[in-house]
């Protein structure tokens, strides 16, 4: 009988990454098989566990703010009322400010770098393509599109290529770069028939911000991503 597998190998067998020899051993060894089966249970549970969406709905955030606003203004006249009142005022003040600024704009990973430089590069040659992204149609109203990053005069320019742009009532299209889990996002500018090129800020890493996203935004004064994406795709270096 062959020797037992080590702990690492047992786990790899459980997720299907095993050599024929390892599988054979597990097939004939009750001890290892029992170990693998318990790890398979975990692995199957994991498979049920995801993927989870990267963004939480904005309306829930608004509900959270509203509930906390209400709490903080209704708890003043109790023990130590002066202190509590001051806290309440501070909190209420903050939540109002946060609303004014827009939830996402004050969010940790969110930087507001609107640098659409369309118009300045008209005469430039397009430059070598350093990365591409296939943009899947997230919304059924549009066709798949593509994007590429070209290097031009030492700068990186994101070009978004769509066959046609949808008509947006009371709104416009915004181009974003997202982190993998959308913990952070950067807007690079507004997409229109006349503006499909966006210079990327020098410090903006496409290994951190790996995904191109185009969303419909409304003229509501809220700089956060609306959650209404039309296209999305991962950037692949060429």
């Amino acid at each position, binding site marked *: 009988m062959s020797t037992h597998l080590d*702990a*690492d*190998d*047992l*786990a*790899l067998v*459980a*997720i299907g*990454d095993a050599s024929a020899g390892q599988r054979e051993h597990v097939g004939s060894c009750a001890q290892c098989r029992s170990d693998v089966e*318990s*790890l398979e*249970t*975990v*692995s199957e*549970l*994991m*498979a*049920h*566990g*995801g*993927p*989870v*969406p*990267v*963004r*939480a*709905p904005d*309306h*829930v*955030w608004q*509900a*959270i703010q509203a*509930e*906390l606003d209400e*709490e903080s203004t209704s708890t003043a006249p109790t023990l130590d009322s002066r202190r509590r009142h001051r806290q309440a005022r*501070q*909190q209420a003040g*903050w939540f109002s400010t*946060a609303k004014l600024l827009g*939830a*996402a704009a*004050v*969010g*940790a*990973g*969110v930087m507001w770098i609107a640098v659409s430089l369309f118009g300045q590069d008209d005469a430039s040659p397009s430059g070598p393509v350093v990365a591409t992204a296939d943009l899947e149609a997230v919304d059924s109203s549009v066709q798949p599109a593509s994007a590429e990053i070209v290097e031009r005069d030492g700068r990186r320019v994101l070009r978004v290529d769509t066959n046609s742009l949808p008509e947006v009532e009371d709104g416009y299209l915004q181009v974003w770069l997202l*982190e*993998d*889990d*959308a*913990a952070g996002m950067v807007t690079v500018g507004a997409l229109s028939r006349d503006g499909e090129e966006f210079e990327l800020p020098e410090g903006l*890493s496409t*290994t*951190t911000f790996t995904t191109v996203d185009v969303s419909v935004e409304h003229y509501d004064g809220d700089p956060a991503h609306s959650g209404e994406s039309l296209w999305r795709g991962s950037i692949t270096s060429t």
Partner: protein
Amino acid sequence: MTDRSSGVDVAGQADARLSAAFAEGEAAALSHAYQRWGGLVHGLATKAVGRSDADDVTQQVFVSAWQSRERYRPDEAPLGAWLVGITRHRIADHFARRHRRHEVPADPDVLRANLAERPATNGLTAERVDQLLVLWEELERIGDPQRRIMVLAFFEDMTHVQIAEELSLPLGTVKSYISRTLRRMRSRLEGEHEHAS
């Protein structure tokens, strides 16, 4: 260090700063936390209780997290793990309330048996849902790069070779992280804490 692995470090440091800021009650920390973990909490709640109740659960989680922020200890758990822990409790409350509404027996043993049998959404029983939340809590506790590796391996179906390239880590390291994380999760589910890793 390569760009990518230092990117992971930077994200980890940002999470640690956010955890500390939340505990301190810094004004913008709740908004940051919602940006960072709201999607996870809402997604897990949707899996557990369905879309229609997920908004409520998510709201309860963040409101109660903020209100009890003085009890949060950043040195004991990353904020993400703490939030998933609260999510787990709110979801358990939700199931319990639903049962009370249906006037199920008050006997805890019967209730527990019913909970275990009663399918939530996605055909998951309440017990499985709870296990799932335990796993996610543990993932958030472990942090990156292990968390990221597990997400890529299990949810994005990347091969180990692809993950190694994506994160600029040696293949052996990726495999070893996956193995250890799986075993750690098993220990956690069995109610033990594996200290060796």
